[in-house]
């Protein structure tokens, strides 16, 4: 039996941090609520204190900071998707967001909530992880910056501490990443959750040699899969389908896929190969879009 939750609606980030400092592990941030309500209904999330942060103006909006793009943590996915800066600087992210869930969800869910949930089959983390994005986490009196690769630990598990609030997500100069793509594979119907997703970015020099390759696969392992060692082995090479297949096979080998109703571990590993090849081909072709497979 659960007692009624106490809902707080603070007006400033400092007030949120104060509440977190006081209630810590007994508190839960409520952002867009799209995940929270599901977990609460299932009885998996029954905090004593709920801190609603969605309306906080300080955490809203998209801005440029030098060459970096900074996404306020409470910016709704739909607003990020339509933002002119995002469309210009991060077209793959804009395209990916357009494929997330449905309009009702995207009008409620926030960037920060999406990342903090730690859902391994969520699409946006694939692109943000591939772009080396970092989350700014603040607690009363201090702040730290965490690369998203270090944010995600496992299924619904992140390194965000009980008293920390994500205030923004910073995508460092996306210009150095070249062109990219996101390929979202649905193993069942068109409204299903993602089975596997691959975000790829490739930059090449004037001679066509690879200067950087970034690749993140979601939906496979309990956390987004990114392997810089495999990526770096491609630098300096003139990338062709054989190289892409090589990368894809190495990722599939490195993967420790989950099994669920959308596919077994073996199936995910098998499909990962052509999926990654497709994402890399599209990135090399300067695609800069997100597509459903």
């Amino acid at each position, binding site marked *: *039996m659960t007692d009624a939750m106490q809902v707080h609606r603070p007006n400033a980030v400092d007030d949120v941090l104060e509440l977190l400092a006081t209630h810590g592990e007994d508190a839960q941030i409520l952002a867009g609520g799209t995940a929270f309500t599901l977990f609460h209904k299932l009885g998996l999330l029954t905090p004593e204190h709920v801190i609603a942060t969605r309306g906080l103006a300080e955490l809203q909006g998209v801005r440029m900071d030098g060459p970096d793009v900074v996404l306020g943590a409470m910016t709704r996915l739909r607003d990020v998707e339509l933002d002119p800066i995002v469309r210009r600087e991060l077209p793959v992210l804009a395209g990916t967001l357009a494929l997330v869930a449905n309009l009702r969800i995207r009008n409620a869910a926030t960037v920060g909530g999406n990342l903090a949930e730690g859902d391994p089959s969520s699409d946006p983390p694939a692109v943000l992880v591939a772009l080396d994005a970092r989350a700014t986490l603040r607690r009363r009196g201090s702040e730290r910056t965490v690369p998203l690769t270090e944010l995600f630990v496992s299924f619904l598990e992140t390194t965000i501490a009980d008293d920390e609030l994500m205030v923004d997500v910073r995508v460092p100069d996306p210009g150095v990443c070249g062109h990219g793509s996101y390929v979202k*594979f*649905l*193993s*069942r*119907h*068109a*409204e*299903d*959750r993602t089975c596997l997703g691959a975000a790829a970015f490739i930059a090449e020099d004037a001679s066509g040699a690879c200067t950087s390759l970034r690749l993140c696969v979601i939906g496979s392992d309990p956390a987004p899969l990114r392997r810089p060692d495999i990526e770096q082995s491609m630098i300096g090479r003139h990338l062709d389908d054989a190289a892409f297949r090589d990368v894809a096979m190495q990722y599939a080998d490195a993967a420790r896929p989950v099994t*669920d*109703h959308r*596919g*077994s571990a073996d*199936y995910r590993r*098998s*499909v990962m190969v*052509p*999926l990654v090849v497709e994402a890399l081909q599209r990135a090399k072709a300067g695609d800069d879009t997100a597509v459903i*497979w």
Partner: protein
Amino acid sequence: MIGARTTTKGSLERVTGRIGFVTNLEPVGTLHVALRRSDVAHGDIRSIDVSAAWDVPGVVEVLTGERLLSLPIEPRFGPVFRDQPVLAIDRVRYIGEPVVAVAATTAEAARRAADQVDIELEPLPAVFDARAALEDTAPVLHPEPASRAEGFADIIVKGQAGNICNKFTLRHGDIAEGFEAADEIYEHEFRSPSLHHLAMEPHAAVTWFEGERLIVATGTQTPYNVRDALAAMFRLPVTDVRVLVPPLGGGFGGKTYAKVEPVAAVLAWLTQRPTKIVLARDEDFLTGSKHEATIVLRTGVTRDGLIVAKQVRAWFNAGAYADISPRLVKNGGYACAGPYRIPHVDIESFAVYTNIAPAGAFRGYGVSQAAWAYESQMDLIAQELGIDRVEFRRRNLLQEGEAFATGEPVHGARFDAVLSDALTLFDDPPAPPPNEHVKVGRGCSVIIKSTITPSTSNAIGKLNADGSMQILTSTVEMGQGAHTALAQIVADGLGISVDAVRILTPDTDTSPYDTTTSSSRSTAAMGAAVTEVATGLREQLLKLAAEQFEADVQDLTIDDGSVAIAGDPDTRRSFGEIVTASRRGTLTAEGKFMSTGGLDPENGQGVASDHWHQGALAAEVEVDTRTGKVKVRRLRATVYAGTVVNPVNARMQVEGSVLFGLSQALYEGIDHDAGFVTNPNLSDYAVAGMGELPEVFEVSLLEDPEDPQMHGLGETALPVVSPAIANAIHDAVGVRLQSLPMSAEMLFDALTAQP
């Protein structure tokens, strides 16, 4: 009018949520019911401690099976066998079986209290697979035979032993002789999973007592059967049980026979307050489902492609209680013969008890499982024989007057016609695939389906003094448009506007008996009854008008809601004026439909169906060989409709059937892990949506002006879908899947295993 594109009655209220669904009904003082269910598949109840439940504020009653036994109430119910306890008695037989029921002032309090109950169960060996349940070592679910419920005299009960709930046998010709005459014999096994109906409206009921009388408002497809079941439970005359049925938010067979009404009614009796039960989606998954089935077909053919023998062994997983399985194995059994002329047929089909939730009626009623098997096998055999698969079908399809496997001659046979019509989808070659990884294939199928026989429908019509009409029937409106079709039929028969006809919702106090709103029967069966109502009222109107005009009936004309002396329009008098002048207040007329038939218990020969539903489907698919994912890109469904009452609704019934089938072909299946349903929600249980609609989706309703028979269309285009898609997949990539659903992974694995 018959043939008019009348907008579905009540559609505005339906889409704006203003229909008085049972879930919206809440009399003053209503108590909410929550169930605590078993988490053990098979086990003896050691103890139940309900004290913590009583501590929850708002709790008014907590009921266990033990307490139930002490009440002057029959503790078990079921349409054929009275084998299902309202709450588990001594033993649980599936995970999710109701063990304790709580009534409380709020739904939240009831839920919380139910969760507080402490149940101790001693697990017993359990069995989940139908064939495994027939082995000697399998635990037996019902060692004692259950008592037979009244009614359903047509259901043959035989073969009960061990976990066999019922067995259907059909012998037509001499199977040994048939195999003797065959040049080749092919044997294949096909499997299809348990499915959820997925009506948007869950199972729900509101019950209360008025003195000794039990009133039940419930979302049921069988109002009279629910009335009779509750009267038997409470040992009341049927006049003391009143069942009201507002429009349903979908049924698909899942709302036939008593389901949630008994437990709500017992709590209403105990508390003397109204009770309301509304199942959550995960509970709805445990309340009726499609039968998981395994079907083995052994088919003998001559070298020139004639089927001479077919032997069928079919196992339908009934789950823990009988529900309507004893009848379903009959329909699912003889359906396995398909729409083909086969001189020697031998069929045995079994309903088998296992430790999963009880299966029941499901749109398609055994025919989907059967057609999946036989229409897949038709392609397999054609390929082996080197005969074109359409030609192979045509050589064997039943022609007018030829005998179906039950021995009865098939009248109105149009299997050739529906198949040919569907195949016009393939007049042009397929468009090329988008890339080299994608393959394109085409397939078809054709099926036969019976309608429940014998069955009865009654209707009463009241023509009022203002010219409006009320029709009393027990036909349930569940979004299929039955009430609109009935109104059109009445309007047509009397020459009045559809808007003047109101079809009342079922109320067993006043609306006359009807067997069931299922089996695609309402437009045909209740349509015949209301046609008779219209005829009867017409005769009365003419007779009264003749008296009022001092004229002969044969000199009168009747149209546009009025009667006049032929050739003298000035005499025109509206129906209302005639009724008023007659001082009768209202005119009433009755109408009835009764079909006869039945099968011999020994050999399954006789009359299985009053008329036959005939459908065909042509499908064109794309298979992505990198992932095994199938995209259905073009479909044409053809059904024989006889006379179409409403072309828009008829088309939507067929479209709905096909999309329903497409979802089952590619995605759907209730997954069990040792009896535990692992996907009882709409995230894990995959269902096709608008995104799966093919680019080309044609529906063809074959009509015959010579044939006034209205053919039900609720199911005809469903069983055709899975085999047509399987046949198209095989055409595309040479892989034959024999188990549903044809998931991307299953196809990928088969592609990978290809030599």
